[in-house]
């Protein structure tokens, strides 16, 4: 059983192997979060209750640059005071920091941050499950689906259908409780018709929904390139308004994921393959694991955008990267086109065409040049690659439990309609109530401890 009163702490979202440096995030939640963080963190300035504070982590004799993000109660994810410590350090140092913190806070159990978010009313149950899917999902499209849940689309659909069930139920109940009033509240035919319509809506929901597993097959586009090639800016420009929440929460999810690209004819996932090429950080150390993950993602991608800084002169690193990408999938994107005048641009463009055996799309995220044509290019290529996948994106993703809930609701509704035909309205009412309650279980259940712990143990530590 979880205690929700104390302060918990966990290491999350880190890509660290051996003694290599990687980004680590430590989360601390609870009323003592700020004080606990203060045990290891020395701010450069006054530690603020809210927002970002630069400083350093000091443990043993080691000092590491770190950034502290403070989210105060009740607006934080967990609804409690929440601290995130972001820093780059080798695994053994991270362990040291955690050990120090655990003297003042408790190690969080699996999913405990989300449990708190749920208990403090920050998210409802289906949202909590969506977070579980974000954490568990390795495919960006799963993430998109999970976000739809977060946005409450399934909740909304279910709520609408629940209202309809309630409407029929109340009319039937009225027929039972007010039969002496001489009013026909709902005719038998009308009742079965309405229930049939609701059943059909639920069946459509089931039929039109995609399983998470199925989404792995949906198209993906990778962003490759050397560091400082302008990948992030391009990514932001491409995703525009549709940009997913994940990249907003800097490095809180897997480094390889970015978001869903909304195009005219289709949707696809956009990967930022950070960690490719040479040094990403000042230390000069490359995170092998991150590189490996990135390479796998590139291999799995339907299309890769290779970003090359048009302004630079030495393209040897970019050529090296291009060798890891299959020719048929590569689209050369020249970035920062605004830094050159028209003449230089043309010259460089010709140089790139020769070097890479592919004509680059000239882009500038500052002027917006080339972004629309790039989107159109991706759109037409992906549509050609995966005909028919377009409409898939609009479906509601349903996980196993939701599937079961919807199927069970349908079962109850069919039973209810059958009982109405037999004239057993009181039994029909029981089935309608069950249908309502089962469907309500999507967001609202009286969960006993066992169920609760099972749901939340599916979470990774820290979200």
């Amino acid at each position: 059983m979880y205690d929700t009163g104390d302060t918990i702490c966990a290491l999350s979202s880190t890509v660290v192997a051996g003694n290599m440096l990687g980004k680590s995030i430590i989360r601390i939640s609870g009323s003592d979060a700020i004080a606990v963080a203060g045990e290891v963190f020395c701010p450069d300035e006054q530690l603020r209750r809210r927002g970002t504070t630069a400083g350093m982590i000091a443990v043993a004799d080691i000092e590491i640059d770190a950034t502290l993000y403070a989210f105060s109660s009740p607006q934080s994810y967990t609804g409690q005071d929440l601290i995130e410590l972001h820093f780059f350090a080798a695994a053994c140092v991270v362990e040291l920091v955690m050990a120090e913190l655990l003297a003042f806070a408790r190690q969080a159990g699996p999913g405990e941050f989300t449990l708190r978010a749920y208990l403090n009313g920050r998210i409802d149950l289906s949202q909590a499950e969506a977070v579980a899917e974000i954490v568990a999902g390795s495919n960006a499209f799963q993430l998109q689906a999970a976000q739809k849940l977060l946005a409450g689309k399934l909740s909304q659909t279910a709520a609408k259908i629940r209202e309809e069930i309630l409407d029929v139920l109340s009319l039937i109940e009225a027929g039972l409780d007010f039969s002496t009033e001489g009013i026909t509240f709902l005719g038998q035919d009308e009742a079965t018709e309405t229930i049939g319509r609701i059943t059909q809506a639920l069946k459509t929901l089931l039929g039109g929904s995609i399983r998470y597993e199925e989404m792995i097959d949906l198209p993906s586009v990778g962003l490759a390139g050397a560091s400082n090639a302008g990948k992030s800016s391009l990514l932001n420009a491409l995703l525009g308004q549709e940009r997913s929440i994940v990249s907003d929460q800097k490095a809180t999810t897997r480094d390889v994921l970015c978001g869903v690209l909304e195009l005219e004819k289709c949707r696809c996932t956009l990967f930022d393959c950070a960690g490719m090429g040479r040094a990403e950080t000042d230390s000069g150390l490359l995170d092998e694991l991150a590189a490996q993950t990135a390479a796998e993602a590139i291999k799995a991608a339907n299309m890769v955008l290779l970003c090359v800084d048009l302004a630079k002169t030495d393209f040897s690193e970019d050529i090296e990267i291009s060798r890891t990408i299959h020719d048929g999938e590569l689209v050369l994107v020249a970035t920062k086109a605004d830094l050159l005048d028209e003449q230089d641009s043309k010259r460089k463009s010709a140089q790139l065409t020769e070097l890479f055996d592919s004509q680059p799309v000239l882009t500038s995220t500052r002027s917006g040049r080339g972004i629309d044509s790039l989107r159109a290019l991706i759109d037409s290529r992906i549509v050609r690659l995966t005909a028919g996948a377009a409409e898939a994106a609009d479906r509601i993703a349903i996980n196993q439990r939701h599937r079961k809930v919807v199927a069970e609701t349908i079962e109850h509704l069919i039973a209810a309609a059958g009982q109405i035909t037999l004239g057993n309205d009181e039994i029909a009412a029981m089935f309608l109530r069950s249908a309502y309650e089962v469907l309500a279980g999507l967001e609202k259940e009286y969960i006993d401890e066992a169920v609760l712990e099972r749901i939340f143990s599916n979470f990774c530590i820290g979200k």
Partner: protein
Amino acid sequence: MKTDRYDCIVVGAGHAGAEASWAASRLGAKTLLITLSRETIAKMSCNPAIGGLAKGQIVREIDALGGLMGQAIDATGIQFRLLNRSKGPAVQSPRAQADKYKYADYIGNRLAAADNLTIVEGVVADIITRDGAVCGVACKDGAVFHAPAGVVTTGTFLRGLMHMGEAQWEGGRLDEPASNELSDSLKRLGLKLGRLKTGTPPRLDAATVDFDKAEVQYGDEEALPFSFMTDRIDREQVPCWVTWTNENIHKLLRDNLHRAPMYTGQIEATGTRYCPSIETKIVRFADKDRHQVFLEPEDEAVTTIYCNGISTSCPRDVQERMIAMLPGTENARIVHYAYAIEYDYVPAIQLRASLETRAVAGLYLAGQINGTSGYEEAAGQGLIAGVNAIRKLNGADPLVLSRDQAYIGVLIDDLRTKQIDEPYRMFTSRAEYRLALRSDNADRRLTRIGRSVGLVDDLREQRFSSKLADIERLTAYLKSNRRDGKSLWQLLKQPNSNLPNELADDETVKGLAVSGDVIAAACIDAKYEGYLARQGQQIAAFRNLENIKLPPDLDFNQISHLRCEAKEKLTAFCPSTLGQAARIGGITPADITVIQIHLKKHTYANHSTHPRHI
């Protein structure tokens, strides 16, 4: 000054007070019943009928527990009908017109003859307490009675304010005084009071009604008794009549809305949605060109008629003109004019599940004072309050019926977990386990409980035992005998099976010598078997939360992470189980989990050395 000592004092002798004093005295407690007048014991101040949808089940439950109401209506009913006959047995309910004078006499006589029970006339003005516990009552005339337990069942009398058109006057009921002192006394004890309203229709001199112009409505050919102790009812039944309002009446009412206190703001309290006044009906259902009016005799000799369906707060002249336009009553003389009444009630969230007030130990409230409507709802509470007042004196746990056991359980639970803003009336749809809470099986649900608390006498117990045995024998026969390859039991599950009708004439069944009740019970058991099993699972799930008792000293404000709104609600409603907490409006599942976690923490803190930090 007159003083006397009792175990329990019941204030008020309406339907709640009658059952409360009957139950308390039956449990062997020296009981005092104080009534304004012996004449008004168990008076039917409104509709001269007992039972009805869902209410009929409550009467059967009261009877199964050993209460009076079922036997009283069987002895004095003048027309019996089983409602919802065309629908399933779970929603069928008995209803009967009563001879209201004989009904009151019957109850009065039973109470007068009861052992341990003293009845006095008086006006109780004050509840006397010592150290937060009740110790007696003081009457207006100075008489003081002492008892460590009290049940207050004052109906609509607390600060009762009657309305008839522009006129308003203080009164608890027609021609009876209101009780303002007692209302103040309850307030002094720390109880918060709310305000409700209800109304009655006009009563007519039956001799002046032309019944030929109305549609006659007869009772059932065979009157089904309410009481499990009644074998059959042979009394000749009296018909009722139905007539309809018309456009002329609607126009009259529309033109006079400014004289109806409901609409002038003269009445501030909330009325009922399920029993609206005729002026409310014509406003809210303006497209309806006519409304039903039942002309119901108030006595066996048919001397007065109750106009069921046209309760109103309109002034006398409007009432007269309305009656003059109603088919059949054109020349009728109004014996009692309709009136509306506003009164104080005590929102029942201030009560424990036993109906004892949380503010004053030993003080119990039952009936309309708790915000309910209806004789049956009142009587059910009265019985529970009477039993619990005495059980507390004896150091026994209170009798608390659960939502899956009885409508009475649903009633009291609803009162304690719902915000009541109109007089609470029972409906079958309020009972989520309706298939199990039937009229036919009230005895099987509750007689043994009535027996264990001491209300059920030997005769009822024997009768019940033999009925149970009969049902078992018949069930065994039905399960072991086959027709067309199927057992009779299975055949009974088939829709529209005619088997229930055939069984009575079946030679073997005749040989089993079982009553019609027994056959009916077995047939219903067979029909509902599968569905009851389903409902059984739901009940089991419901009990999981219901069985988690909240410590009486639990301070919700001390539970960290509980939302402020939840803290407020829970503190106000003071639920005694986690299930009850979950049913309070505005309480979310997350709140329940937080409480669960708190309870768990509590247990850890008290019983283990569970480490706080790993």
